[in-house]
């Protein structure tokens, strides 16, 4: 402490103190995030005996099953399609509101940014199940549609792909808007004004100045949305039906119902692989330092 206080200004000083302050947090991530991923790696190469017990003997059987059985590839493909659809919908629907918030006067902007964070305080399970009384056979929408005579039979809005996509978009849209908004904050209004003065239309100024400067935010939003949609377990579980089970549900079933831990580990690592690929791509395109920037109200 004394050494730190006396030589405060020297660059690199206090390194010991810095690392000791970081120590608990680093241990926590290492022990509870990194070590678990390593254990997934180990388990995925271990043998599962017919009795269900796991033997610590090297085998490629789990990976062979994952790549050999077209059921897993089909499940993965279906989930990637879902994640792509959810990401596209979130980006298309979310860009307008994010842009609109930046145009508002400070007070109203602060209110909307605060409201934007409100959903992330509310339970994910509750947000997903809130669609049940809305989309059900005797739910809000169908009772309105039947009431005004637009339909004779209640519409099948629930327990299908539609309700799963809707639930996921509702869950991920706030994250997408926040990230696009963070990107847009990096745009200096003076640059846009300069473009306008030089004769660009609003649209030209947007596509030549605003969009390219703000795009790391959109990219971060897409990465986050895609990965979280790929790993979403709760939404399909609550809002999906028999035919709308996705990759995370498969992982869950493999672990819990079939108790096949080595295969489940291999299946989980595929999600990590997509996460790392996404991060590498993002790092190349936008630079990893642009991720998780501050939200100003």
């Amino acid at each position: 402490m004394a050494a730190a206080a006396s030589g405060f200004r020297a660059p690199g000083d206090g390194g010991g103190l810095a690392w000791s302050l970081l120590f608990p947090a680093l241990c926590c991530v290492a022990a509870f995030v990194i070590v678990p991923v390593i254990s997934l790696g180990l388990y995925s190469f271990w043998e599962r005996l017919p009795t269900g017990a796991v033997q610590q003997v090297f085998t490629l059987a789990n990976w062979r099953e994952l790549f050999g059985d077209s059921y897993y590839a089909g499940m993965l493909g279906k989930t990637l399609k879902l994640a792509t659809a959810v990401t596209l919908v979130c980006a298309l629907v979310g860009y307008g509101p994010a842009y609109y918030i930046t145009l508002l006067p400070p007070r109203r902007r602060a209110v909307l940014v605060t409201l934007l964070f409100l959903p992330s305080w509310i339970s994910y399970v509750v947000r997903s199940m809130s669609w049940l009384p809305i989309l059900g056979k005797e739910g809000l929408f169908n009772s309105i549609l039947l009431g005004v005579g637009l339909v004779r039979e209640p519409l099948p809005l629930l327990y299908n792909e539609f309700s799963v996509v809707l639930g996921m978009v509702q869950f991920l849209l706030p994250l997408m808007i926040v990230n696009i908004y963070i990107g847009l904050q990096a745009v200096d209004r003076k640059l846009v004004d300069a473009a306008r003065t030089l004769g660009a239309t609003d649209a030209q100024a947007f596509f030549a100045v605003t969009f390219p400067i703000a795009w790391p935010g959109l990219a971060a939003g897409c990465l986050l949305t895609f990965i979280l949609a790929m790993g979403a377990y709760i939404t399909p579980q609550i809002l999906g039906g028999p035919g709308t089970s996705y990759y995370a549900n498969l992982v869950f079933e493999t672990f819990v119902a079939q108790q096949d831990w080595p295969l489940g580990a291999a299946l989980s690592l595929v999600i990590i692989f997509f996460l790392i690929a996404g991060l590498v791509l993002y790092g190349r395109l936008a630079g990893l330092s642009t991720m998780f920037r501050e939200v100003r109200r």
Partner: protein
Amino acid sequence: MTRRNLFHQFLGALTLLVFLFMLAPALVVVVQAFNESPAGNFPISGLTLRWFAALPEDPAIVGALHTSLALAAWSSVLATLAGTAAAYALARFPFRGRDQVQLFLTVPILVPHIVLGVGLLLAFRMLGLPKSFTLLVVGHVAIALPYVVLTTLHRLQAIPTQIEDAARTLGANRLQVFTAITLPLALPAILTSLLFAFMTSFDEVTATLFWLPPNTETIPTHIMAMLQFSTDPKIHSLSSLLILGSVGVAVMALLAARALSPDARGSRR
């Protein structure tokens, strides 16, 4: 000019719809909590408080609430202590590898909870450790930590270093500067982090399903069970209390941050 106005009006309407889409479904759950009919249907057949009154009489719900509160309290306090220390180091020490450490501490936000759930369970299994309350706490600390680091770090970076430099010039040592200057200025963010970590832990369900010791439930896993194995009418009253609680805590965080922030004390520039 009018064309631009028209476009802005369109954007405004779209924004309103999007916010309704994100927030209004929760209101439907609150409405259903008062519905006399147990099935949760529309139109509402009559109003009752019966489903709220039945909540404290259900021992499973009371037990789950105890578990959830204890878990959220432990994990949010631990995550806030470790996260604030780390954020302070990241914000105030120009050590080598700072950017990489920051990325390392925040990137777990991107890992889907199903992977965190099975991974930590397998790690515990490999070490021969049984499922326990401790497993739940450390898992929830790992989930909440990145949010604490980010929120507090952003706040610390926004505090002008000149204030700390001035205190130091006047003879304060690092600890004195921290407790007299930095900590009070960062307190709103630290408090927000603590409350957000608490709610994150209280609401976590996917990973928790893997970590729960036998015969233990948290409120969200109990709601999942209610959804899958029964048609318990209390589900709407329980969920709406959860919604009101979450919104209440969020508002509390906002008000506390306002009241504690130096801007509110009249030094607004």
